[in-house]
């Protein structure tokens, strides 16, 4: 019998291939993505032993321009144990690297290493990520101390910290003053390697790389960089998103007792049905790692947008007899770029965050509506569907603020257009939502349909605004619309052009209540290598895609966000959700964890993922509630709403093949549970908005790992199931079906109040709690005051004038503190001081409201809102009334419930209708 292939025409063979691939489409495709062994730079660097390659030494160390400069030369004599290891061994030894060390305010050391300017080609340095005024914060180094024999040079870094450059082999250390033990060090293990650019010597030289039928021409040859960084005194390291994991701390990827693992990969990719636990790279990359231990915290950031692979090495990975204790070694490998790295000295974890935010920028202050609940689906089909979903929220008394439209709303996936049949009257549709205080978001992706009748395509095409392929033609890749080109957003001029497209004149059918979603901006290219753009595609300034890949989505996000800013004449805060991200994305908007799946593991993984994003600057982030792929069982959906209600970004989303899952579709009981979960978020909106304000000033995220708030409590260091919302609330997710009880560790130092029934719990121990279906466990820390609004409306917009409730959880000395931040919720007037910022202090049975705005600030914002209810947890009974000053007014005190839901019991002393204005100074005494 002949083989089937012999009999079949070629088309049928393809059919078979297609069928085979399609039939297995429901699994993550490991083979489609390169692993470390398939990337020569990674394989080579990963295979090295400490001190096994020729070392470099620092020469001509000197101060210039207030910074340290030196040249890196091969150490003398060359070590001889390197035969065969390195193809670059035969490099011109006269070529040197230039090193520069500079210091910035607040405990930041910057290390830059690049080739001599005489190199054949300039290596890419990522622009527009570091804050433009960063240099204003650089410290002018007055002197260098060089101890005996000139073997090292040290200089001031921050109070209590110094930086040391050890000359031969060169090594950078950050130390506490007077201590020989470093906090951070680079090249302590001698793994530093820098492949310098070469010019092709002969035609026979083959630098091409092939992967699954794709060829990378690599015209400039190998150019990778790798080095080791050690975190001393660290128990755990965190950060370097984006990876899906059930663990908040980064698990070791190499060394004894580590099962075969890939390094953590930072390479922005559109991964179909990603796994809940894998070191493979997802949609975004932030090469920023934090360490934390009982003694201190520190951080390291490498500004580099090329593919990066990072190993976290388990103690003993180098086969040394006595593995270093309390030190975590890491190996950083990048395919291209330069060394532009930052060391953050801490010592408190919040200091590390502030130091990182100090160079990459604070998170943008979102509009108030964006902090509320978002309803999304691929796709709300037409205007009728939109109207019906909108009406059903009202019918079921579930608030929501934003309705989202995915790709199908467009005319053939041409963004900025509308399907005429399905969405004939987009403005009217948005108007109807806006009349209820609601907003709409439409999707705008970077792939531009190659269609001359599409004005965006035509314009960009004529202007030469697309990324070019290796041959110099407009790159042509396949995405939703079919054959597509991609705007070269690395170019500021093209970003400006792109931003203009969001003007109301240009984006026909858009209204001021419409905001934007950037998806697929890794960029996703369906027929590209690893579903993305070929590395040898060419960007502005002859930059190869390999050099800028991880930042493409960032620039796109930036351009879109600036577009919305322009659209509103700089008066309206943009809202742009992006899937791809890079260091600095926090300045431009929101991100989410991409196409997750409707299963319990992914519900669990969402918390470490969002916490990691928060630690690396992206405070405003969330995961698709319900899970994008697949159909969540009602219990999972309810649990996801209960957890998602605490995500900084709270959006439900679903794949187009999934069953409808709007909150009211699973029976009266589940509807009530979801309504309750959404209500929890809406009642906490004043608290959340205050936290967003804090994040926009300090970079401290809204959703925080426990150890960020309790850095001394070792029990919290690797908690990825529970998290803090701000400084006051602790939330524990429920991640298992029909879970009956859960063990929750409540950090030490304070007691905790259950947020539903007011029950008090001791801190510092694990409590086994019964779990009901009504809610997930949540606690308010004693000593805090949380502002709420307990009246529910259709959307947050209608809550503006509603009165507040203050929940005061008293600590052992019957004291508590909390804050409330209020502004107009949409404009930038707050930058001029147009906001209310109060601190509430309760002590000695007296509650005081204090204005915490800087004294000299101008700007005007006021509110007639009052506080209608004050709930005191932990106050001994016996209170009779409250007296309010000024005015010597009295208010009733009685026993009341903690929340206004049916069946609540009367558990807390409640001040009835104090009706003090939030804008005013006042005191309230409990008598």
């Amino acid at each position, binding site marked *: 019998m002949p083989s089937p292939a012999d009999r079949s025409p070629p088309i049928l063979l393809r059919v078979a*291939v297609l069928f085979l691939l399609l039939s297995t489409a429901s699994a993550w495709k490991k083979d489609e993505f390169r692993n470390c062994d398939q990337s020569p730079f990674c394989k080579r660097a990963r295979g090295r032993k400490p001190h096994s390659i020729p070392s470099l030494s620092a020469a001509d160390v000197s101060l210039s321009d207030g910074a340290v400069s030196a040249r890196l030369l091969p150490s003398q004599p060359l070590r001889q144990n390197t035969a065969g290891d390195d193809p670059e061994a035969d490099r011109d030894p006269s070529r040197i690297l230039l090193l520069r060390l500079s210091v910035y305010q607040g405990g930041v050391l910057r290390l830059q290493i690049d080739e001599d300017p005489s190199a054949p080609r300039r290596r890419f340095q990522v622009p527009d990520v570091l804050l433009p005024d960063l240099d204003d914060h650089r410290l002018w180094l007055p002197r260098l101390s060089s101890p005996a024999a000139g073997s090292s040079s040290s200089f001031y870094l921050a109070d209590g910290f110094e930086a040391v450059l050890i000359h031969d082999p060169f090594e950078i250390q950050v130390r506490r003053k007077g201590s020989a033990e470093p906090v951070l060090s680079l090249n302590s293990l001698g793994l530093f390697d820098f492949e310098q650019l070469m010019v092709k010597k002969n035609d026979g030289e083959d630098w091409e790389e092939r992967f699954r039928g794709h060829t990378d021409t690599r015209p400039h040859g190998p150019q990778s960089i790798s080095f080791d960084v050690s975190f001393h005194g660290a128990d755990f390291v965190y950060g370097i998103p984006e990876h899906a994991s059930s663990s908040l701390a980064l698990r070791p990827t190499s060394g004894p007792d580590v099962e075969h693992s890939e390094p953590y990969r930072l390479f922005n990719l559109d991964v179909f049905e990603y796994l809940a636990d894998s070191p493979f790279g997802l949609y975004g990359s932030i090469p920023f790692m934090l360490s934390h231990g009982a003694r201190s915290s520190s951080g390291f950031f490498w500004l580099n947008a090329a593919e990066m692979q990072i190993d976290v090495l388990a103690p003993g990975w180098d086969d040394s007899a006595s593995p270093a204790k309390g030190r975590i070694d890491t190996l950083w490998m990048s395919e291209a770029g330069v060394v532009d790295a930052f060391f953050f000295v801490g010592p408190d974890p919040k200091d590390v965050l502030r130091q990182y935010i100090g160079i990459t920028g604070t998170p943008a202050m979102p509009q108030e509506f964006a902090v509320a609940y978002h309803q999304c689906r691929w796709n709300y089909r037409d205007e009728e569907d939109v109207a019906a979903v909108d009406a059903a929220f009202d019918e079921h008394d579930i608030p929501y603020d934003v309705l989202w439209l995915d790709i199908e709303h467009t005319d053939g996936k041409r963004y900025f257009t509308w399907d005429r049949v399905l969405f004939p009257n987009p403005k009217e549709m948005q108007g109807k939502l806006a009349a209820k205080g609601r907003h709409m978001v439409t999707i705008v992706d970077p792939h531009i349909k190659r269609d001359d009748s599409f004005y965006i395509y035509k314009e960009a095409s004529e202007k030469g605004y697309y990324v070019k392929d290796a041959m110099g033609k407009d790159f042509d890749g396949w995405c939703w619309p079919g054959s597509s080109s991609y705007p070269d957003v690395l170019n500021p001029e093209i970003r400006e052009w792109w931003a203009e497209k969001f003007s109301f004149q240009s984006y026909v059918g858009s209204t001021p209540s419409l905001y934007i979603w950037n998806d697929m901006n890794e960029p996703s290219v369906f027929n590209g290598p690893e579903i993305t753009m070929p590395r040898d595609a060419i960007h502005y300034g002859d930059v190869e895609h390999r050099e800028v890949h991880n930042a493409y989505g960032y620039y796109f996000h930036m351009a879109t966000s600036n577009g919305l800013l322009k659209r509103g004449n700089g008066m309206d805060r943009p809202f742009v959700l992006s899937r791809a991200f890079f260091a600095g994305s926090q300045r431009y908007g929101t991100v989410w964890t991409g196409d997750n799946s409707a299963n319990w593991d992914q519900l669990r993984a969402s918390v470490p993922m969002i916490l990691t994003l928060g630690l690396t600057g992206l405070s405003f982030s969330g995961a698709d509630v319900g899970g994008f792929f697949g159909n969540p069982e009602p219990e999972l959906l309810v649990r996801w709403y209960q957890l998602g209600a605490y995500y900084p970004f709270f959006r439900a989303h679903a794949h187009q093949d999934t069953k409808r899952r709007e909150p009211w579709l699973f029976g009266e009981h589940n509807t009530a549970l979801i309504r309750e979960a959404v209500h929890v978020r809406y009642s906490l909106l004043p608290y959340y908005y205050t936290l967003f304000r804090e994040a926009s000033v300090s970079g401290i995220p809204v959703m925080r790992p426990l150890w960020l708030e309790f850095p001394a409590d070792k029990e919290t260091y690797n908690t990825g199931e529970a998290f803090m919302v701000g400084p006051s609330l602790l939330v524990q997710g429920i991640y298992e079906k029909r879970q009956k009880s859960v063990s929750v560790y409540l950090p030490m130092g304070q007691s905790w109040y259950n947020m539903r029934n007011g029950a008090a719990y001791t801190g510092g121990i694990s409590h086994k709690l019964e779990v009901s279906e009504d809610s997930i466990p949540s606690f308010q820390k004693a000593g805090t005051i949380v502002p709420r609004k307990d009246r529910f409306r259709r959307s947050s917009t*209608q809550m503006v004038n509603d009165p507040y409730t203050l929940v005061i959880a008293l600590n052992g000395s019957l004291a508590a503190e909390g804050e409330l931040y209020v502004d107009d919720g949409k404009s930038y007037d707050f930058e001029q001081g147009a906001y209310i910022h109060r601190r509430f202090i309760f002590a000695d049975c007296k509650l005081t409201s204090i204005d915490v705005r800087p004294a000299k600030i101008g700007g005007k914002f006021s509110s007639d809102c009052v506080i209608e209810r004050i709930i005191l947890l932990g106050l001994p009974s016996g209170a009779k009334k409250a007296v309010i000053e000024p005015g010597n007014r009295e208010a009733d005190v009685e026993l009341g419930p903690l929340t206004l839901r049916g069946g609540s019991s009367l558990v807390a002393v409640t001040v009835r209708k104090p009706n003090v204005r939030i804008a005013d100074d006042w005191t309230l005494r409990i008598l």
Partner: protein
Amino acid sequence: MGACLRISLTISCLLLIWISASASIPSRESLGIAPQDLSYYKSDVIKCKDGSKKFTKEQLNDEFCDCPDGTDEPGTSACPQGKFYCPNVGHIPLTTFSSRVNDGICDCCDGSDEYNGNVSCPNTCWEAGKVAREKLQKKIATFQNGVTIRKQEVEKAKQAFAKDEAELSKLRSEEKILKELVQKLKEQKERIEKAEEEERKKREEEERRLKEAERKANESKNAPEESSHDITDQAPEKLSELHNQDAMEDHHDSAVEDKNDYTTGTEISDNQQVANDHDDTIAKSGHEADGRSDGSSFSHVEKQHVVEAQDNAVSKANTDYPGTEEELSSHVAEQGQVSDSTEGLSREELGRLVASRWTRENAAEGNDEVNMAKEGLEHDEDIREENHDGYISDSDEDHKFEDDDLEDDQDAEFGEDHEEPTGAYSSDEDDKTDYSDLTVSGSSSWLDKIQQTVNNVLQAFNFFRRPVNISEAATVRKEYDDFSSELSKIQSRISRLNEKLKYDFGKDREFYSFYDRCFESKQNKYTYKVCPFKKASQVEGHSSTQLGHWDKFDESYRVMLFSNGDRCWNGPDRSLKVRLRCGLKNELVDIDEPSRCEYVAILSTPALCLEEKIKELQQKLEDMNTGQPSAHDEL
């Protein structure tokens, strides 16, 4: 009223005053309270309805939530679980959520939900009420007319049901008689054949003897030709059979369909008998093969046969199968050998392929061959699992072998039978036309005539005549064939009637006429066809997708469910939920796919115009006219 003028409520109270001036607004004590509830709030100390607490009259509507269930704040937004009543004089009173009170949006047509002055809501109750009343009046009129039509329908159904039952019992008795006749004819035929056989043997024996003698005479010359003669003698006969069949196909559009219909009892005329026999053998071998469902095994065997015959006309139908079993199985075999590689694909194919993971759509959209083959593969499995009557339902050619397309064709022919020009039509035309010559009209002489004929035939045949009279033998055979096919037709009709009568047609059998009907609606590029008690499909051009097979009525005959339709790739089986509502015509008015592959439709029909509902509607209208509150709750 004075009590509320505390500092806390200055603003709202000022507004209350403003509103009281502009419209008649209830006082604080009655704000948001339904009239029938007013008495509950009479006393000085009032209980929360959930029993959790008590509150004073002072605390009623004082903008502070005392009862978690909202009892104390019917007129404010203070309690999240509260309900607000707006009288809406001139229209219907409305009970809405407390969250709507003073939220800046006018919810009650009388504006009573917005009294804090942030927005001013004009009283639109009279206009809105007028519109609503007119609408309601129209609805009542529809119901009243509908009830009449429904009564007629029910009456018709009653008759039709009785008729069907009568027919069934009649057919049963005919079946019995016919069976006997056929048995007799069979015996007769066998006897004739036996006689013929004996004659033949004798003749052969004689010929043999003659030949033997001849051979002996011419021994050296003619010997070798003999054996091949027999074969060539028979071959032309077989070929002519096939030609006969071809001719039928050429001249008769529905020849292929007729073949298929052998199972459902098509009238078989004399000149089609050969084809029918042919089908019989196919059917047998089909059933022997693997006992699969009729449709698929038929196509399968049909194909084999045609391949053997090497006949162009017929094999055309075969090659039109996009993915015949042979090809498909070869694909399946290939799968083992093709590695998980995309390298053989063009860049566009790769792009489509990857996109298809998210869309779960056909990766090779625009490439029909690939498309159909893929669908074919997919459906192949379905067929094995489900008793599916289409071989590959997404390709048009094979629809020739599907019942519902037969109906389509015949639909066109028998257009005059359409009862509903608005897209409803009979789904069982073939039944009616096929049996027009049978006893449906109750012609009592028919059986007598048959019996007479048979007796004549039987008596006419003289067994003692030798040789057997050839024309008489042929007559017996023909009669046997005719009557056994009549019998099978009757049997098939019986089983169809049995099938039909076992369904639940509603409590008044008001859906009886639906059995023979389909309803159609065109939406953009799709035509949706809903055939109650049978199936529903979505047709786009030449391709048809099964949305579901009849499942049942649901929600006390207000919903028709169709389930187990074609499988969505990587998704659920398609299904359709048809919501029924009162209307004067049977009309499919709306169809939608809210979730992928889960369809919903609305069918208006007089069957849902129930008399008892009219009273309810009239009461509602009366309430609206008098402005009296009713217990109606818009929530």
